């Protein structure tokens, strides 16, 4: 049996106007209206820049989405990943019918419920009970459906005691649990979820993911937007990678995530210079190359928390018979020093020498790191220092279990920790 397409998006684009609404927009509106009245094309449809938020605006219009095409099959769980500004949220807004595309169309089969936010329409003065009905109705449930699910929702949220208390007296945790409870018990054919999992404690996240997994196993379609690769990996069979309003890749989650990481993670894993041309240093020391080689089975450049890797350095020593040792400092991008290791001192001849540092897997936590290399003479005199020699990101592993929050700690070693 061929799979049934439940969402079919054709050439959808969404243009936003930059800046404020004022008299300037009125003149554009009049020109647009005049062009359309004469049967011409909208003069502002052709202009506009890609949505790169770091660039200075070159046009008054930006395309949050540009010619996006995709199909989603029934029962599919699709993850959408991408950096900020990739168009993920805009796409969700279009699918949730909060706004409509500038061009193109999306055809949908079945009822859509979107969770762009938990607790939409919650009124602080209303009680938990009243808000369940309010929120459920906003999500498109009938009173009868909500009544049927009421006990389950209260149970899921664990707020039985406070059910007749106004939600303004709830703790933020209770509030979120109640709100997600209502959303989780919707029974739409298509569920759209936008990173609501970022809220709540580990236990609650586990509950939420479990609930979403349940929904998916009942043949319903889920679209899940997240920055969290692990959550996407565990929940989604296929994934769509977006960048600057365009779809870069769609396919099996593992493949797409690898593609995403290799493109978006700004690694600087190799530096090479030529002696007497551009090699950084001074008369005593010139750095010739620095390299990070991950020991991955598939030779990919992605380093996760389990990957062992090796640093290799080559340098030119300009002082004959100098007693040199190397010292390496590993910092996170945010400036926290993780470790400082040194080689034993050695009497080096004038010429090219090399050095290697092996870093085991299961040591570093997921973060972006940078290294500084110190060349020291007689264990006291600094010959040369080079900062930010290499930059690399260690990504999280595909975790077991259901908790996907950021793992805390400067390092993430595997120690012998037993439980009887």
């Amino acid at each position, binding site marked *: 049996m061929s799979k049934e397409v439940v969402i*079919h998006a054709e050439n959808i684009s969404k243009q936003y106007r930059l800046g404020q609404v004022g008299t300037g927009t009125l003149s554009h509106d009049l020109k647009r209206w005049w062009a359309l009245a004469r049967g011409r094309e909208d003069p502002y449809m052709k202009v506009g820049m890609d949505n790169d938020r770091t660039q200075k605006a070159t046009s008054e219009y930006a395309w949050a989405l540009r010619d996006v095409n995709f199909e989603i099959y029934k029962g599919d769980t699709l993850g959408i990943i991408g950096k900020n500004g990739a168009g993920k949220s805009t796409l969700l807004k279009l699918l949730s*019918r909060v706004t409509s595309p500038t061009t193109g*169309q999306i*055809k949908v*089969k*079945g009822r859509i419920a979107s969770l762009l936010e938990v607790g939409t329409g919650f009124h602080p003065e*209303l009680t938990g009970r009243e808000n369940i009905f309010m929120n459920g*109705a*906003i999500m498109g449930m009938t009173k009868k459906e909500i009544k049927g699910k009421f006990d389950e929702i209260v149970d899921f949220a664990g707020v039985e005691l406070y059910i007749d208390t106004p939600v303004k007296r709830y703790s933020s945790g209770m509030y979120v649990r109640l709100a997600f409870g209502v959303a989780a018990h919707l029974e739409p054919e298509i569920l759209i979820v936008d990173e609501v999992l970022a809220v709540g404690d580990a236990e609650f996240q586990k509950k939420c993911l479990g609930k979403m997994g349940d929904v998916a196993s009942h043949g319903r379609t889920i679209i899940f937007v997240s920055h969290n690769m692990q959550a996407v990996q565990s929940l989604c069979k296929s994934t769509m990678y977006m960048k600057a309003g365009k779809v870069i890749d769609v396919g099996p989650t593992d493949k797409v995530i690898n593609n995403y990481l290799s493109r978006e993670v700004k690694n600087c894993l190799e530096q090479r210079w030529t002696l007497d041309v551009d090699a950084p240093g001074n008369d005593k020391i010139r750095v010739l190359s620095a390299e990070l080689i991950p020991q991955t089975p598939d030779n990919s450049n992605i380093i996760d928390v389990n990957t062992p890797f090796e640093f290799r350095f080559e340098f030119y020593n300009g002082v004959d018979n100098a007693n040199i040792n190397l010292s390496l400092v590993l910092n996170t991008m945010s400036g926290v020093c993780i470790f400082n290791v040194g080689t034993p001192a050695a009497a080096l001849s004038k010429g090219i020498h090399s050095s290697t540092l092996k870093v085991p897997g299961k040591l570093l936590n997921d973060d972006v790191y940078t290294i500084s290399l110190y060349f020291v003479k007689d264990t006291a005199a600094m010959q040369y220092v080079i900062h930010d020699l290499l930059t690399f990101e260690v990504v999280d592993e595909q975790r077991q279990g259901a908790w996907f929050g950021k793992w805390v700690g400067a390092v993430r070693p595997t120690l012998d920790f037993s439980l009887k």
Partner: protein
Amino acid sequence: MAQHATGNDAEHWDINITSSRRGLDINLAELWRYKDLLAMFVKKDIITVYKQTILGPIWFLIQPLFTTLIYVVIFGRMAKLSTDGVHPVLFYMGSVTLWNYFSETLNVTSKTFSENAAVFGKVYFPRLILPLSKVASGVLKLMIQLGLFLVVWLYFILVEQSITPNWHVVFFPALLLVFAAMGLGFGIIITSLTTKYRDLSFLVVFGIQLLMYATPVIYPLSLASPDKQIWLWLNPLTSLFEAFKFAFLGHGAFSFFWLGYSTVFTAVLLFFGVIIFNKVEKKFIDTV
């Protein structure tokens, strides 16, 4: 790989999300499916108003009561405007109650998009549900206030025996419907026109006040000389107020011709209101 759906255009799709919507494309079936949401909005409107108050719903009565007293003093005693022989308390209470319903409906629905942008920005439901719920919760408040009016009215009929109502009171529900539809019609047009350029919304409060003086609310139609009355009749609210006063107070003018005019006016207004509302609701969130 994805096969293109161009070959099976005959397929049934439940929702089609595009940039444009043509004409009067309101999905009544969908509107009906969200009737429970409408009921929830009404409930919220009513109960959140008097949460944490001691007097509760009695507050709905205090407002028309005080307005009536103020009008009696200012327009009755000081300005000495005629009330067509009706006792000023009864005269002002009737018109104030009715006017408040109309002006509140108009005022509240004219802020539909701007005040609910947060909810509209996160979830889809037929947007028309919201102004409709305001109309409905307004009717509930009106019923409470009308109860007060009826008590006063019965007092004047039975005890004072100063007024003679007539069978035209049976038209009251129809009058109310036209009032509601007109308030809604103006409201949704204003809210649709003010999502991008808010200039018009500054005129609303002022305009409603002005409209009250252009309508026989605090004065009877007979105050105007017969040759000038035509101008007042052109105001579609006039025939409604006059019909109400005629039916309940026995004064005023009941004109089927002008009532017909008001009804047609309202139908046209609502028709265009819904068209423009439908057009705006699809994209207002980008500019509101």
